[in-house]
């Protein structure tokens, strides 16, 4: 009996290793590709094939082939074509990978086609879905994608004077007399809180203001409590908040409680924690041309442009928006990452979603911009 068990385990392990190796070989052709992976090497005789070829080549970073899949480009456009897929300047796109895509035909004639593609990107901040419309044309017996030339902003060499303003911390030492060198934590306050039920679960949201004269690193936690005063769930705002708040700055926050219904909740305990952090007052990012609109799929969104008013590149801008009803109550908080880096003195568009059920309530909105920049605290 002592010998049989190890032998069985070895045999099973070898069998599983064999199955695993042979299984991967069979599946390798379709891993991460939603549509048309087997058509890559075929001549693109249909718009779907042509677009699939382009997307698969882009996904595999096979740039020579991908560039050959598009029309209306000059050889000098290749670098900007690649940058469109891979990002630049340490943007979110440059840390992302195209995981999969879904193609939906919108309109097809004999020599023209409109296709809508849902691109699924894996990024350091979670999966991001991008919806893009492509135009394809027939060139002889093959189809090619007309590449929409995006104007990649370029900043001319210049000197941008900036009055630097930052806060540094000097800590006390263990030898200091007790109470002699204490610095109070920044004074922050939750100025509004609202809880709503959605199909995905309960959501607690509102706004926090830094009432102090120093920067604060802020995090908001919420605990849902039932009728017996027992905690049901405890969550934090995670990245749906601008953590570093300068004096008198206001940030929205949103805390999601998946799969929890508010009818089981008797009370919500809010807890805002603020700590001293070194911080910089730059870069200043304006939010221009904000308006409620519909995206290509007809969903309601808040769109606008971010305007970097400083001389530093913002690698990953993050937009957080609070939406108010007619009484000034926060009815929704939404956020979104901008995949392109925000270069100095340039604009970058953004959109954030609004749930369909809340669109009618929204009367006003407030947008704050969080930012992650390399080489800075």
């Amino acid at each position, binding site marked *: 009996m002592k010998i049989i068990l190890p032998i069985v385990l070895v045999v099973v392990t070898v069998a599983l290793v064999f199955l695993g190796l042979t299984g991967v070989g069979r599946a390798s052709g379709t891993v991460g590709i939603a549509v048309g992976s087997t058509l890559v090497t075929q001549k693109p005789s249909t718009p779907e094939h042509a677009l699939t070829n382009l997307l698969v080549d882009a996904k595999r970073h096979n740039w020579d082939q991908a560039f050959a899949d598009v029309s209306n480009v000059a050889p000098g456009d290749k670098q900007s074509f690649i940058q469109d897929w891979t990002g630049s300047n340490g943007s979110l796109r440059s840390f992302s990978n195209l995981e999969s895509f879904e193609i939906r035909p919108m309109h097809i004639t004999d020599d023209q086609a409109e296709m809508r593609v849902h691109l699924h990107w894996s990024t350091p901040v979670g999966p991001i879905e991008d919806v893009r419309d492509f135009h394809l044309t027939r060139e002889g017996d093959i189809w090619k994608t007309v590449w929409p030339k995006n104007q990649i902003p370029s900043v001319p060499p210049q000197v941008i004077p900036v009055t630097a303003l930052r806060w540094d911390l000097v800590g006390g030492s263990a030898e200091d007399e007790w109470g002699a060198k204490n610095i109070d934590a920044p004074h922050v306050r939750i100025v509004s809180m609202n809880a709503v039920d959605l199909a995905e679960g309960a959501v607690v949201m509102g706004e926090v203001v830094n009432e102090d004269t*120093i920067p604060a690193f802020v995090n908001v936690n919420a605990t849902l409590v039932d009728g017996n005063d027992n905690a049901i769930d405890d969550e934090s705002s995670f990245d749906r908040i601008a953590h570093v708040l300068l004096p008198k700055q206001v940030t929205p926050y949103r805390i999601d409680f998946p799969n929890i219904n508010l009818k089981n909740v008797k009370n919500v305990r809010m807890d805002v924690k603020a700590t001293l952090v070194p911080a910089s007052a730059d870069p*200043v990012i*304006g939010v221009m041309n904000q308006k409620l609109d519909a995206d290509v799929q007809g969903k309601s969104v808040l769109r606008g442009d971010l305007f970097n008013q400083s001389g530093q590149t913002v690698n990953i801008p993050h937009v957080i928006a609070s939406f108010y009803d007619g009484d000034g109550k926060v009815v929704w908080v939404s956020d979104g990452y901008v995949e392109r880096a925000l270069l100095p003195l340039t604009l970058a568009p953004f959109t954030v979603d609004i749930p369909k059920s809340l669109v009618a309530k929204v009367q006003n909105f407030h947008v704050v911009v969080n930012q992650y920049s390399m080489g800075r605290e």
Partner: protein
Amino acid sequence: MGRLRLIVTWMFLSLSLALCLDGLCAAEDSGVRVPTSVIAGEPATISTMGSGRATFYVLGPGISRKSDVRLGEEIHLDSQYTRNAGAYQVIVCADTCQSATFYVTADKAAALTFLVHPSRVPVSQSNAVSGVAIPFDQFRNLIFTPLNVNFQLTTGNTLLLSRAVRTQDGVAWFRNASGRSAGALQVVASLDEVSARRVVQQVASDPCNLRIEGERTKTGIMVQTEPVHDCSGNPVPDGTIVTFTAVEQNGKSTVDAPIKQGIARAQISGPGGAVISAASGVVMGNEVRVGAQP
């Protein structure tokens, strides 16, 4: 055998101590005489009556000692055994055990623990600054004897408060309004030759009369505040965020701009006209209208 004797002795001592703590032993009658009061860090002398050899125990806050003594002779406790204030139990065991209690009280004040709150305070706030002073002797014994602690609050050359407060149960405290000028608020607590100094940073309060002006530039609208002050005239600290909101025909634009060198400024892009307002925290400023690009 030795261990059994130790256990029996320990049980006896514990019982004696328990009885004494209940007040069932009398120091004077038992032949052990202790001083009525001892100041911390000073030697104490304990008298015994009778004759023969005995074992002497002393149990106090953070101290225990056992020694052999001769009854009828004085027992000297060095100053190192009386550093901690509190009740001390002495037990002398010969054929029977006798015990007595004496108290060690704190020495004169040698240190002042002083806690002031908060470390930053907006100007002109009532009851905004508070301080607690706790006197200790050189051995860090809390002094329960009522003492007068002098509190002084000064900002610049202005004396905001000078008050003598008598300690209660070893604690003296004050509460006072903050001054009207931003800057360092010196807070001093003193007791005889001992003093402690703390500094509270008085900062400007919320902005007052926030006013902005704007002008069209080649690329958009440049808008900026006038120098931002609070209602007492103190400049609001640099870094404070002023939110500019421009309502245009096609939407609105906002910029959270920090005050730098007393002024916050922002650039609104776009060629259209706009109505621009400003706010900082809960304070609203004026509105300006800037026309469209000609």
